[in-house]
């Protein structure tokens, strides 16, 4: 193996790349747009959901409940309460989409409170939108907890005016947050960085490689004494350098947009470079293995969207892997995106050190060695 031949292939690719900024632009614009649009679309707090309130009890207890409900609603402004006189009117408007849920206080609510007989209120939801219903349900849980604490479990119907027993039977959960609140745009950033490297791999390692092949440019190199290994290594390293450049650019621009704290921490930047470098090598070698026997220029264009969906979404970039069904988890295990996203999240969201990312780097590195070896084995040196 001669290094001068590998460096000649790298030089060729770099000169072509620097002369045509289209690759760099396209590898940056899409992930940045996705980061901004998805980040702000999913990251915002849901506000002003219209909820119908039907009070058929109309007693002091139900009024107390309504006042507490109004207080909870007033804080985060998640909901906007509309009072209805009958459940049937509210149900009609729920079906028509004018309100997203109904809080129904039945006529026997106060009686059950007095009897200590499991007083009930109903929550009827339009569950076609999971995000909205889970948000309202969260607020409803707050309401129920608040009411339960106000009612004396030992003397039904009486407020807690007597001294509390020594052992409080209600468990109080204390929540400790390790990190400051993470906005969704920060959560999404790791996926966008990996996406920019994927686009470089797709365009440089897929589309340009096949285009050059179909234009006959490869024939000019295959008649020289270059070996298969030298050619694949040259193409992989040049692609990885471009991937690293794109990844670094998105890390900085995206990090500034998302507001990552202490972005310029030199130790973290060093670890980021290692992760971006190994991710670039892994993605480029993955692409070469897919394209090594392809000669039709339409193929990489046709599978671009498929690969994007298949690699990006199962990676945990936009939703945690723990929420996937079993078959989708298997895809995430063999997806280089998964390890890149995991390592980038550890560095960008938690500023974790090397122990948090070394397994990802080892997996991505091993992945690259296997994929490059397979690409060399399958590459046809002859026409």
């Amino acid at each position: 193996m001669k290094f001068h031949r590998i460096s000649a292939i790298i030089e060729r690719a770099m000169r072509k790349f620097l002369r045509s900024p289209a690759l760099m632009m396209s590898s940056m614009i899409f992930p940045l747009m996705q980061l901004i649009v998805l980040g702000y679309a999913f990251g915002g707090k849901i506000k002003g959901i219209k909820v119908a309130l039907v009070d058929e009890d109309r007693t002091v207890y139900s009024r107390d409940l309504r006042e507490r409900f109004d207080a909870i609603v007033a804080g985060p402004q998640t909901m906007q309460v509309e009072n209805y006189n009958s459940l049937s009117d509210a149900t009609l408007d729920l079906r028509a989409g004018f309100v997203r849920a109904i809080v129904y206080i039945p006529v026997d609510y106060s009686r059950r409170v007095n009897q200590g007989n499991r007083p009930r209120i109903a929550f009827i939801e339009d569950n076609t939108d999971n995000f909205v219903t889970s948000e309202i349900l969260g607020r409803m849980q707050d309401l129920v907890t608040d009411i339960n604490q106000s009612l004396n479990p030992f003397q039904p119907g009486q407020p807690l005016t007597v001294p509390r027993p020594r052992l409080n039977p209600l468990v109080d959960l204390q929540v400790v947050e390790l990190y400051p609140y993470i906005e969704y745009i920060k959560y999404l950033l790791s996926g966008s960085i990996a996406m920019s490297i994927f686009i470089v791999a797709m365009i440089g390692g897929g589309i340009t490689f096949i285009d050059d092949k179909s234009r006959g440019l490869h024939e000019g190199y295959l008649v020289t004494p270059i070996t298969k290994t030298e050619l694949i290594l040259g193409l992989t390293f040049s692609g990885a350098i471009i991937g690293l450049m794109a990844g670094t650019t998105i890390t900085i621009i995206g990090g500034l947009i998302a507001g990552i704290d202490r972005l310029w921490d030199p130790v973290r930047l060093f670890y980021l470079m290692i992760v971006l470098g190994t991710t670039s090598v892994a993605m480029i070698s993955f692409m070469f293995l897919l394209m090594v026997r392809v000669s039709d220029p339409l193929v990489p264009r046709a599978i671009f969207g498929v690969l994007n969906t298949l690699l990006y979404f199962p990676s945990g970039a936009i939703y945690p892997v723990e929420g996937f069904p079993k078959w989708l988890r298997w895809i995430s295990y063999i997806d280089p995106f998964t390890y890149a996203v995991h390592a980038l999240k550890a560095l960008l969201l938690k500023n974790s050190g090397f122990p948090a990312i070394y397994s990802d780097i080892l997996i991505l590195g091993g992945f690259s060695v296997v994929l490059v070896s397979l690409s060399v084995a399958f590459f046809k040196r002859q026409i």
Partner: protein
Amino acid sequence: MSEPEINAIEVTKLKKQFGDFVAVKEVSFTVRTGEIFGLLGPNGAGKTTLIRMMTTLTPPTSGMAEVGGHDVVRDANGVRRAIGVIPQALTSDPELTARENMMIHAKLYGLTRAERERLIPQLLESVGLSEFTNKLVGSFSGGMRRRLEIARGLVHSPKIMFLDEPTTGLDPVSRTTVWEMITKLKESAGLTILLTTHYMDEADKLCDRIAIVDHGVLVALDTPTKLKDSVPAADIVEAEFENAPAGWNDTLEKLTGVASVSEHEGVCHISTNSGPLTVRELMDLARDRGVNVRRVSVQGTTLDDVFLYYTGRQLRDEASESVKRDLSHLYK
């Protein structure tokens, strides 16, 4: 005592089969050091497959080929170092400049920086592209790109050059320039050149020897002159006479080498093995018989006649047939 002549290329029973289709059928020939050797044949005759086997781009199914003393299968890298190849497709990088294209290739062959700095300007000068050294190849005409690729193929000082249809798609001026360049290469650098072409005039003008390839078979191999001489009665003498006596055409048929005589609108068409000899005898006979010769002309044998003789059809017929085949679905 002179040194024994070493062949630059030796091809023995070389065969290439793609599935059921045999593209090259056990072809054998040798190319002598320092000659321009032409593979002439229509599209699809197997010329490119042959050249690809000799340049290690395609593995042969069977048979053997030695190029520059290296076996194309056992010592492919030895072959690659000894040859320069100009493939049929334009293979220079349009996104790079002429100099960059040259430099990348020079590095692939391991030339030192000093060698690159010395050779690249010289080679670009020799193909007339000095003033375009730093211009992007994407802005070049087809002829300029072909000249650049010839220079690029010479960057490692090969002993043998392969040119696959070097002038296909070029305008007449560019073709002439490329022809001049090829001739100059042979004369100045002492290169052995193997080229493929389907242009008769190109093969006739450039090649020391020509191999006619048809349907994967080598049907004839010799110098252009000898190939033409091998075609019987291919010279045509046209003459117009005054005062020709009765039976004059029958008399002409008895001249040496004449195969047939026909007359059309007062012009005699005489098919003969040797046009010049027939003209001399015809003039002598006319003077003796008192016949005035108003006009006489000789059309020598062309490589078209040679191709027709050896393959049973004309090269241009083959080309038009292939076009008809390609377009046949439009007429259904």
